C-alpha cells in the first residue's frame, strides 16, 4: 500500500480536518462528531445523507446551499452510528423536518432507522428516501436488495433544489420515492480499493482483467473477463441500462459518468464519447450530462454510468440549478 497519510487509523478524522480548513466558507463540523453541516441554513426541510467514508466527494462535498444540509461520515466503508446521524438531524432541522437520503445497505438502513426513531422521540419530523440504483444486483427476496451507488448524487441535487424551493417533507418524500425508481447505474472495475487500515486491496484482478457490476465497496460483480475497449464497455453498460426504461417513444435522459477513484478524467471522457455514440442506437435524447468523480471507492480503478429519466422537466431544472457546494 502506498498512500499519502500519517496514520492509517486516523484517515477519516484527518481528511475531515483538511476539508474543513479548505472550505471554511461553506461547511463546518459539529464538535466531537464526524458530521459536516452547511453554514448557510435557510428555513427549509433539511436533507441529511451519509454513509461510510471512502466515497469522496460523497457525501460531504455535496453539503451546502441547494443540496444537503448535512453529511455524516462513517468509518471507512462502514455505516455511521445512530448517535452521529441524530446529531446531523438535530443540526439540520429548522422546524420543517428532515429528509434522510440513504443508500441501500443493511448497515446504513438500520443505523439511519435507529437515528430516525431517536429523533422522533425528540419531536423532530423525519422521513427517508432509500436509493438503490445499482442494477448489477437483482432485487430479489433472497438478497439485501439493489445497492445505492452514484445515482445517489443526482437524488441529492434534485431534492436539494426542491427543498430550497420550499417543498414540504411529505412532498419531498413522495417525489424522492418516485425519482429513485427512474435512476439506474452500472459500474465496471479494473482494480480493487485499499482501505488504509487493511493495507491491501479488497479484491484483485489480473493485469488484463476487468469485472462488470462491482459495487462501490468492492462487492463482487456479475462477470469477470479480459479487459475490453472503452467502446465495448460502453456498449455493455448502455445496453443493460436502457432495458430499465420504456423507450417506445423518445425519452429525455440525463447521464452521469462517474470515476471510482483511480481512473483519470481522460479515460472518463474517452468513455463518455463512446456512451454518446452508443446511445444513438437507442430512442433517447440526452438533455443533461455530468462527467467526473462523484461517488468513488477510495482508489479503485473503474467507472460507473448512471442514466436518469428526465421527461419531467422539473427534474432537469433542478439538476441545472446553481448550487453552492464543494464538489458539484
Amino acid at each position, binding site marked *: 500500500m502506498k498512500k499519502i497519510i500519517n496514520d492509517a487509523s486516523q484517515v477519516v478524522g484527518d481528511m475531515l480536518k483538511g476539508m474543513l480548513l479548505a472550505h471554511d466558507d461553506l461547511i463546518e463540523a459539529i464538535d466531537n462528531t464526524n458530521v459536516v453541516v452547511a453554514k448557510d441554513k435557510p428555513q427549509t426541510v433539511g436533507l441529511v445523507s451519509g454513509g*461510510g467514508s471512502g466515497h469522496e466527494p460523497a457525501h460531504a462535498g455535496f453539503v451546502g446551499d441547494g443540496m444537503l444540509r448535512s453529511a455524516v461520515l*462513517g*468509518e471507512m*466503508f*462502514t*455505516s*455511521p*452510528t*445512530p*448517535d*452521529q446521524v441524530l446529531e446531523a438531524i438535530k443540526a439540520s432541522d429548522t422546524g420543517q423536518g428532515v429528509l434522510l437520503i440513504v443508500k441501500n*445497505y*443493511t*448497515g446504513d438502513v*438500520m*443505523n439511519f*432507522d*435507529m437515528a430516525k426513531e431517536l429523533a422522533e422521540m425528540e419531536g423532530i419530523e423525519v422521513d427517508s428516501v432509500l436509493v438503490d440504483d445499482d442494477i448489477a*444486483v437483482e432485487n430479489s*427476496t*433472497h*438478497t*439485501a436488495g439493489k*445497492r445505492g451507488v452514484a445515482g445517489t448524487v443526482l437524488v441529492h441535487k434534485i431534492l436539494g433544489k426542491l427543498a430550497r424551493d420550499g417543498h414540504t417533507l411529505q412532498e419531498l418524500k413522495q417525489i424522492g420515492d418516485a425519482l429513485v425508481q427512474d435512476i439506474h447505474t452500472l459500474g465496471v472495475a479494473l482494480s480493487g480499493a485499499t*482501505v488504509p*487500515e*487493511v493495507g491491501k486491496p*479488497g479484491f484483485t484482478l489480473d493485469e488484463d482483467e476487468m469485472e462488470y457490476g462491482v*459495487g462501490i*465497496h*468492492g*462487492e*463482487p460483480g456479475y462477470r469477470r473477463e479480459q479487459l475490453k475497449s472503452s467502446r465495448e464497455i460502453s456498449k455493455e453498460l448502455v445496453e443493460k441500462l436502457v432495458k430499465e426504461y420504456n423507450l417506445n417513444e423518445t425519452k429525455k435522459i440525463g447521464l452521469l459518468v462517474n470515476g471510482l477513484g483511480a481512473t483519470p478524467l481522460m479515460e472518463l471522457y474517452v468513455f463518455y464519447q463512446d456512451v454518446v455514440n452508443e446511445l444513438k442506437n437507442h430512442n433517447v435524447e440526452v438533455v443533461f450530462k455530468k462527467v467526473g468523480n462523484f461517488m468513488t471507492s477510495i482508489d479503485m480503478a473503474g467507472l460507473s454510468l448512471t442514466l436518469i429519466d428526465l421527461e419531467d422537466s422539473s427534474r432537469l431544472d433542478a439538476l441545472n440549478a446553481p448550487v453552492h457546494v464543494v464538489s458539484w
Partner: protein
Amino acid sequence: MELTGEQAQRWILCFQEKIEKNKAYLSDLDQAIGDGDHGSNMYRGVQAVKEKLNELEDPTTEEVLKTTAMALISKVGGASGPLYGSAFMQMAKTAKETTELPELIQAGLEGIKQRGKAELKDKTMVDAWAPVAEALTNGTFSNDTIDQAVEDTKPLQAKKGRASYVGERSIGALDPGAVSSGYLFTALVEEVLK
C-alpha cells in the same frame, strides 16, 4: 436462573476479551463473504463497552445491559452495531420485569429480529441466538448447543446483509455475526453457567 448485575458485568467483559482475541479471525471470516470489517467493528464496540462498564459500581442487571447497548450502538456502526445494540436494549427492557436468563436471551433475539428482519436459516447471527434461546428455555442448553448452532451456518446460503450479494458463494463459510454471537454465549457459560 437469574442473572445478577455482577454476573452480567463479568459476562460482558469476558465477551470483550474474546472479541479482542479474535478480532482478526472475525474480519477474515467477513472478508470471505462480506467486506472484512466485522472484527474491527466489534472490537471498536467492545472497547467502548469495557470503558463504560468499568465506570459502573454495583450495577443492576438492567444497567449493565443498557450501558452495553448504548456503547455498541454509538461505536460499532455497520450492520452489527444496530443489531447487537437492539439485542442488548431489548434485554435491558426485559430486565426491568425479570432477570431470568432464558427470558433475557429470548428478548435479545426478538430485538435482533425486529431490527434486521432476518428469519432462521438466513445465515445471520439469528442462527446462533435462536437455538441458544430455545435450549435455555427448554433446559437442554450445553456447550454443544453453541458450537452446533455456529457450525450449522456453514451450509446455508446468505439471504440477508452483505453476504447475500455473493449468493451461492456464501455456502460453506461460517457467518461472522453468528461466530461473534457464539463468543457471547461461550462467555456466558464461562462466567455464569459454568
